[in-house]
């Protein structure tokens, strides 16, 4: 028979365990969005009302894989695609610079001075005026040093190379002075290169003091890190106001979960890089509740070949690899047509892109490889990012084609960080990499991959050297005439396709999916034009 004291002890123990569980469950409840803020009107998992009954001011919920508003410690606070801040210079559909907060500009004859005339009557979200003082304060902030970001580093030296002075000319005019001619400076300033914030929203160290205040058509009403950012229409916006009153952008890291959330109606669209994998996107085709939107991406996928050792230190072997590839089979078979084959190192989203026909010729590839290898076969290590499922299939396809020209590939999946380190050592044969275009001025890409001292040339052990490219880059950098610069860039692209510092595979396509209950959801070079997104009537 159990004694009363023993019974009490057991009861106490059970109560203790129960209290612990309940306490832990409750401790997070106070911070839940559902309790502290109104629940999103359309975040319910249940099927929603028909489109014709939707309140045009109802909240629109979208999702991306990462924090689009990383907050105070990020150099930009949030991504450009949220339309919270605006740059002095933005870009059009062909990636050419067009006015935004700077209404117009002119370059001095010697190319060392740029004068920007600012848009008048523009207000920041905090009520402050946008003027030359605000622009100068933003330059002062950039001058404090590099600020890291989830998007691009905020680095005055990268966006304004050779800048020696910035000054206020009058209330609505600023002037930048460079030590070298900077005829393509506008390209460096596009979007992230000239983001402008209210000087009242950052401190002396240049860090944001709270939610950032830009001039964009949306302001941030709430930012719950790693969960969502809530955007509200800025009623005093200088241009065409945003169509949607509020947009909530959730963070859903897993692509399958994002897809399920879209299909269940929990979210109405996916945005940002890697919005939806091609394999999932094709499942939506034919379903009238959803639509896809695509445009050129600034990302290019390519193979790096270790040019510091045999066999790829021989140009003929690099050319043989390129000729043996069947790029359209990769883009059509593995990426469902969402990709454009290329042999040009430069991404197709810049106006400087030269369309070079893709040459694929197995017989020629065999002949070139035969000249180098003779009757031998060579085994090389093929590195790819193990976290990307499509890269495995891609590697297997490429390995099978290279087998036909005497190259046997040892496929090695690695974590991306480990792979980058391996590339530095040069102890590999082939590696699958990608490169984004930070702005549409292509000199950065050429410099990094093709100049003898270029950082990618060294870090990827490309071993590439071309006196002609070095001379062309030198000529381009001092050319004030854009046509001369274009000629130089055209020639460098031709050389890249012939000498193959890397072996390009395909240009990416930006792919996004959305519910047909929305209108204005159109992919742009960088994100979607959020202010045009609205409920369909």
């Amino acid at each position, binding site marked *: 028979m159990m004694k009363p004291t023993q019974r009490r002890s057991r009861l106490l123990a059970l109560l203790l365990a129960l209290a612990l569980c309940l306490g832990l469950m409750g401790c*997070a409840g106070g911070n839940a969005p559902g309790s502290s803020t109104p629940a999103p009107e359309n975040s319910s998992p249940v099927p929603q009302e028909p489109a014709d009954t939707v309140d045009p001011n109802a909240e629109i919920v979208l999702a991306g894989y990462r924090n689009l508003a990383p907050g105070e410690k990020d150099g930009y606070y949030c991504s450009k695609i949220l339309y919270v801040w605006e740059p002095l210079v933005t870009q059009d559909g062909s990636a050419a610079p067009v006015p935004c907060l700077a209404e117009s500009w002119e370059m001095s004859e010697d190319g060392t001075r740029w004068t920007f005339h600012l848009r008048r009557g523009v207000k920041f979200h905090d009520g402050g005026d946008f003027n030359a003082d605000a622009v100068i304060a933003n330059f002062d902030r950039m001058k404090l040093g590099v600020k890291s970001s989830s998007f691009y580093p905020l680095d005055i030296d990268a966006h304004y190379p050779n800048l020696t002075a910035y000054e206020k000319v009058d209330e609505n005019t600023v002037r930048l002075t460079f030590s070298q001619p900077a005829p393509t400076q506008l390209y460096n300033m596009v979007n992230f290169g000239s983001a402008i914030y209210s000087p009242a929203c950052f401190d002396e160290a240049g860090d944001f003091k709270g939610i950032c205040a830009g001039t964009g058509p949306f302001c941030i009403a709430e930012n719950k890190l790693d969960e969502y950012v809530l955007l509200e229409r800025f009623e005093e916006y200088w241009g065409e106001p945003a169509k949607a009153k509020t947009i909530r952008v959730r963070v859903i890291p897993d692509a399958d979960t994002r897809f399920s959330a879209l299909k269940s109606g929990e979210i109405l669209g996916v945005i940002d890089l890697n919005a939806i994998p091609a394999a999932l996107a094709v499942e939506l085709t034919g379903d009238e509740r959803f639509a896809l939107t695509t445009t050129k991406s600034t990302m290019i996928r390519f193979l790096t070949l270790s040019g510091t050792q045999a066999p790829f230190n021989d140009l003929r072997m690099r050319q043989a690899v390129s000729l043996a590839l069947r790029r359209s089979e990769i883009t059509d078979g593995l990426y469902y047509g969402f990709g454009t084959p290329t042999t040009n190192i430069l991404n197709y989203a810049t106006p400087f892109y030269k369309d070079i026909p893709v040459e694929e010729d197995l017989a020629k590839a065999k002949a070139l490889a035969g000249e180098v290898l003779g009757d031998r076969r060579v085994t090389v290590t093929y590195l790819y990012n193990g976290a990307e499922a499509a890269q495995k299939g891609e590697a297997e396809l490429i390995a099978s084609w290279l087998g036909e020209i005497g190259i046997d590939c040892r496929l090695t999946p690695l974590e991306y960080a480990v792979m980058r380190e391996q590339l530095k050592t040069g102890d590999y044969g082939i590696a699958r990499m*990608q490169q984004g275009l930070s702005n549409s001025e292509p000199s950065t890409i050429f410099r990094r991959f093709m100049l003898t001292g270029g950082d990618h040339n060294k870090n990827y052990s490309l071993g590439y050297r071309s006196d002609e490219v070095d001379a062309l880059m030198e000529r381009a950098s001092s050319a004030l005439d854009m046509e001369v610069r274009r000629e130089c860039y055209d020639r460098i692209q031709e050389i890249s396709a012939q000498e193959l510092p890397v072996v390009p595979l395909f240009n990416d396509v930006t792919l996004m999916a959305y519910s047909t209950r929305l209108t204005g959801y159109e992919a742009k070079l960088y994100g979607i034009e959020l202010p045009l997104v609205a409920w369909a009537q």
Partner: protein
Amino acid sequence: MTMGRYLLHKLLSLLPVLLGITLAAFTLGVLSPGDPAELALSQGGYEPTAEQVAELERQLGLDAPYPVQYLRWVGRALSGDLGTSYRSRRPVAEELLRRLPVTLELAAWSITLACALGLFLGCAAVIGRGRWPDLLIQALTGLQLSFPAFWLGLLLILLFAETLGWLPTSGTGGAGHMLLPAVTLSSATAATAARLLRSTLLGELGKPYCTAAAARGITPARLVVRNALPNAAVPVAALLGNSLGGMLGGSVIVESIFALPGIGSYALEAIGGRDYPALQGYVLLTGLIYVGVTLLVDVVSMLLDPRVRLGGKHL
């Protein structure tokens, strides 16, 4: 040994354990190839220049020798400062505290579900032993143990969120949001608890006190629940308590699938970005939680079972 001394001894033994695991985490981190500054700058597909990487290395103190970096971290950690994340540039302690409630809520739901399901299935299997309920439960628990958590999670989302629309796919916001992640995380633990309980219950039922109770005409269900369960539950309670460590580890994947901003998903990002301060902060915190819960389980076990003594004396 008194309870007070026992607890003090346990708490003091924590210090070298915590120091050891943070050192191990740091050493493994720096041994793994990958430059934290380069990775921090290359988020979003951008490729930083060598100058940008060097500047960030200087800012983060990564240009110092590894022992200096670790000792600096230990020095700051002793005063409660776990350093600053290389990726987010936010204080690690602040990030962990912001995320901890989500993980604790998930763990509590998971433990509760594992406990309820384990008890129910274990008892039901014994009450219906040798017949279809027992066989069905054995098959079910076998299935639960063989399902990888990430796959189970995706299947649950597909069924209950995408197809039926009963529950949300992801995020936080209440019990509805926690149900699928908790089922995913607790499934294997519930199956283990059910099997262990079945086995210990069968052992108890063979003992004379149960035979005597059965001889007095008590129903099988009452015999199992009232008589055998209190004694058979002690090892199950220890198992559930100790499984919390596994759940904290398992939450890394579950949080990522269900978009729960807990410390598990933070650790996953930290590993990918070689974010040593974030990783060490995570290891320190989970180590503290794990050791604390183990201690609590010891105390609960002693209270549940008077036969457990410290130093040969009753508590």
